[in-house]
């Protein structure tokens, strides 16, 4: 009898250990943790809000590919070992876009534009950055960003977000004050070329001695003819850029702003005072554009944590969230392009 019981106990031990192992894996992998904010749940929210558009990015879905180079002037070389800051040219593949998951959104529907860049450094390193034409981010954490996206879900009756839900979200999130003050006076611009694009998240420049300095950077336009976009035309931005590039390359100065002691380095919702020291590191020159469904930017994930030696991420929690969510969005759209089993099929724009 004792032998039989011992036998059963040993079998139970083996089975129990296997079950605990599988359950632990299920928890870590998120399947048994329904309340954890996973990249999949965040990206699902964008699909819920904008609808499923196979082949497109799940956020910043509408945009164009651009290319050119960065002309470093050497001024930031004292603060970072990154080869991009030395004097000379670094090739760039970039993308201008509108925030939001709808690839057919009207250009005037949102007062924000974005610029994403991939610098291919001569030493084989890469610098990827996704910047927005706004000085500050609405929220500080991925969880708040998720709640904001949920609150912005269009009401099926009106096709627009429910103002009461948005108001409730903002009331519950006082950290959005700086963004709300800015967005109140922001107008959709007539051009991508006249916008200033901010990194918003902070990073560290690392010099040859290993010293780290907290910075934010911005692409400051040389074009000075900014104006509001034309009413009644949903697609003016790509045409404007085409017309400008037909005349000549478009330029931005890369302006690096250094944090003073005590400035918030890990909070994208809090701007730094405007008197902080800046260094202009060089000029971004954009001289050509291509449609995003065939251009070289299509297959690039502008993950802002892909950084060369000499630039390091800050502890801003939004950076890890962007990296995780962009990776999920990238997998979804490349799986659709590759016609993987179970993936939705992209629809050519012309047949839509």
């Amino acid at each position, binding site marked *: 009898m004792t032998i039989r019981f011992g*036998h059963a106990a*040993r*079998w139970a*031990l*083996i*089975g129990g*250990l*296997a079950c605990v*192992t*599988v359950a*632990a*894996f299920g928890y*870590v*992998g*998120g399947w048994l*943790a329904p309340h*954890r*904010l*996973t*990249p*999949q749940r*965040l990206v699902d929210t964008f699909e819920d809000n904008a609808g499923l558009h196979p082949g497109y990015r799940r956020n910043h879905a509408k945009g164009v590919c651009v290319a050119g180079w960065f002309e470093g002037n050497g001024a930031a070389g004292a603060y970072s070992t990154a080869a991009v800051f030395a004097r000379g040219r670094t090739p760039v593949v970039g993308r201008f876009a509108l925030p939001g998951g709808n690839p057919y959104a009207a250009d005037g529907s949102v007062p924000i534009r974005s610029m994403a860049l991939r610098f291919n450094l001569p030493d*084989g*390193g*890469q610098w990827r950055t996704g910047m927005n034409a706004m000085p500050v981010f609405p929220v500080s954490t*991925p969880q708040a960003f998720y709640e904001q996206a949920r609150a912005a879900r269009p009401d099926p009756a009106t096709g627009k977000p429910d103002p009461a839900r948005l108001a409730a979200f903002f009331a519950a999130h006082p950290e959005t004050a700086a963004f709300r003050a800015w967005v109140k006076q922001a107008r959709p611009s007539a051009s991508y070329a006249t916008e200033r694009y901010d990194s918003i998240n902070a990073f560290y420049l690392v010099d040859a001695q290993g010293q780290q300095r907290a910075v934010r950077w911005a692409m400051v336009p040389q074009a000075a003819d900014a104006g509001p976009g034309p009413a009644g035309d949903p697609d003016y931005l790509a045409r404007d850029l085409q017309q400008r590039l037909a005349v000549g390359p478009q330029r931005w100065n890369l302006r690096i702003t250094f944090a003073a002691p005590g400035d918030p380095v890990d909070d994208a919702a809090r701007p730094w005072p405007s008197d902080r020291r800046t260094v202009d590191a060089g000029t971004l020159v954009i001289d050509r554009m291509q449609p995003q469904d065939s251009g070289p930017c*299509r*297959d*690039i*994930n502008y993950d802002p*944590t*892909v950084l060369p*030696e000499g630039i390091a*991420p800050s*502890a801003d*929690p939004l*950076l*890890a*969230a962007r*990296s*995780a*969510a962009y*990776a*999920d969005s*990238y*997998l979804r759209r*490349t*799986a659709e*392009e*590759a016609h*993987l089993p179970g*993936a939705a099929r992209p629809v050519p724009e012309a047949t839509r």
Partner: protein
Amino acid sequence: MNTPTTFHPLARLLHWAMAGMIVAMLFIGAGMVATVSERHSGLLAIHKPLGIAILLLAIARLALRLRHRPPSLPADLPLWQRLAATASHWLLYALMLALPLLGWGMLSAGGYPVILGDTMRLPAILPENALLFAWLREAHRYLAWLLFLTFVAHMSAGLYHGLVRRDGVLASMLPSRRRREPVVTDG
């Protein structure tokens, strides 16, 4: 020449070191793609160099396995268990080689720099191609699940040998002092 009753000491060392690394790797991989928290970045930074370390150790271990015969299974073991043991062992070897290569290959195809630690960068082993990336990324996922399930089966089978059958199979992979056979000394 007698069939050995235990695995080569180096094989045992590699087995237990890699067991820890591979199980950690499976949990790190599952966890890092299932969170938007800072853990995503921290785990990713461990995942890549750990994967390359497993690849190198797996090559060394395969070479050792091909050079040194493992102890044979008990004669009374049912045929299906014998086949399952052989198949799952070779499946484990195949997966511990394939998964790091798939990870390295998918990053190459996705156009990402493959960075280990702070500064060490590995060359791309495949051309930049987003469609290839998607296939490799999904293969990496599903084969990782297969490796996890094979590991659970392997662990359970090892415990079955050690606790239920008590046939020396588990002991053959344990440190030498647990060996049941008397040591035959010369002259």
